[in-house]
């Protein structure tokens, strides 16, 4: 990647966030919006920073729920994708079931889960995993189904058994697809955690913090919490994008990075 492109990649998003906040500020100030309807962006941010000692542990919980749930969902999703691809019978047995899991409105799923699993981290983790696994399964299945048939045939001619074919060819071939599922999952993960927090009406969480701010007409607190939740989601998404970046160097480089000395490209001298 050229330097110019890199700068664009970093400053482009920052610029759009700044513009968005500016727009918000302009509407509130020039539109004479009442402070109990919408605060100025800076006030919303300050509502977070000045209450940070209260918000920090709550934020930490939400992050944990998101990460645990996401990891469970991602692994489960990838595993199911492989199972569906390898055992054709499973496509008929499992697929309808998978559709069913996604047909249940997630908001309606949260209360029974809280009844079953209590007010701790568990129901939130389950909800996040529930949301995340599906796009991962679909994308992994799709990736595995589209591995070049001729390549698999060639591997057979080379005498590779099915395990080697899977590890050496099918898994890496599906990785691009895998990441598209992981990215979709990443955008939904925080939403899942917050839905779980809302359903558990006792205990302390970001969602309940926001609800009580709303009850006391503290607009800055409400908007600030939304910003905070959004930030968690964006940071998680960016981490997944970063992982993809590291895992798929061939999509952006023409040569492999050389880690060891002595493995440098050798020049022919003829």
């Amino acid at each position, binding site marked *: 990647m050229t330097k110019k492109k890199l700068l664009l990649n970093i400053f482009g998003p920052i610029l759009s966030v700044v513009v968005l906040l500016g727009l918000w500020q302009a509407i509130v100030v020039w539109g004479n919006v009442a402070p109990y309807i919408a605060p100025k962006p800076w006030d919303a941010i300050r509502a977070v920073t000045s209450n940070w000692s209260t918000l920090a542990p709550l934020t930490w919980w939400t992050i944990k729920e998101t990460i645990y749930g996401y990891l469970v969902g991602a692994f489960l999703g990838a595993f199911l994708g492989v199972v569906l691809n390898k055992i054709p019978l499973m496509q008929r047995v499992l697929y309808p079931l998978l559709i069913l899991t996604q047909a249940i409105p997630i908001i309606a799923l949260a209360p029974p889960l809280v009844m079953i699993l209590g007010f701790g981290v568990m129901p939130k983790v389950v909800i996040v995993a529930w949301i995340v696994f599906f796009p991962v399964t679909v994308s992994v299945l799709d990736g595995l189904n589209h591995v070049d048939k001729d390549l698999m045939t060639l591997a057979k001619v080379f005498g590779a058994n099915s395990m080697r074919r899977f590890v050496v060819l099918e898994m890496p071939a599906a990785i691009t697809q895998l990441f598209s599922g992981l990215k979709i999952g990443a955008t939904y993960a925080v939403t899942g955690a917050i839905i779980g927090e809302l359903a558990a009406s006792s205990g302390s969480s970001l969602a309940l913090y926001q609800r009580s701010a709303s009850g006391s007409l503290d607009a800055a607190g409400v908007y600030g919490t939304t910003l905070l939740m959004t930030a968690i989601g964006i940071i998680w998404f960016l981490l997944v994008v970063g992982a993809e970046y590291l895992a798929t160097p061939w999509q952006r480089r023409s*040569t492999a990075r050389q880690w060891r000395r002595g493995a440098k490209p*050798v020049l022919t001298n003829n």
Partner: protein
Amino acid sequence: MSSSSILELRGISKTFASTTALSPLDLDIERGSFVSIVGPSGCGKSTLFNILSGLIQPDNGSISLEDQNVIGATGHVGYMLQKDLLVPWRTVLGNITLGARLKGKVGPEDKEQAMGFAQKYGLGEFLHHYPSALSGGMRQRVALMRTLATNHQLLLLDEPFGALDAQTRFEMQQWLLQVWRDTQRTVLFITHDVDEAVFLSDRVLVMSPRPGRVVDDLRVDLPRPRTLDTLVSPAFTDLKSRVLHQLHRERGA
């Protein structure tokens, strides 16, 4: 059985559902020779390769490769298609050693061999490039290196240059002859291009339309190394016209 044969086919036939792809076929291939197979589309050339490579079982007949019965067994031949089938996530080096990786581990000697091939045959500067950075001709070279690196004596090449432009193709043909001469492998080469068949080979087999039979078996005694001059020599033109006539007679033209 002649002692110099590496491959002997006796009565090999294959029928798919209702189409007879190969009618009983006998064939002896001399060790170290370069043999081309030409024939109309659908006459069973690729089917023959699939049988030789162990991907499919013939209905009848026997195959002996280096005095071993290899019917239905894979892992005995090098195989290469028109599609280069390089994996985008591995470098040139990783692609050349893919055969070793598919069977287990890539050892230092596999790497050394791959680097040796790459350097000798014009890919030395590209060892650590990903395939996306290579031209079509370059990719086919890597694919052939990968085939060589499996260290099988018999190489089956199914229209390997079919997708290349004329100029690249000619370069690749000369390059292939150099590789073949150096490595002393036995090559079976399918092509639709009669010029290519005559230019490369010691022997050209002409097959009939389906069900495929070998209807002509020509020795090509043109001197090697073959060059541009070979292509315009009267002897070349004679051989080429004989192959073309065979092909077209068989097509009923």
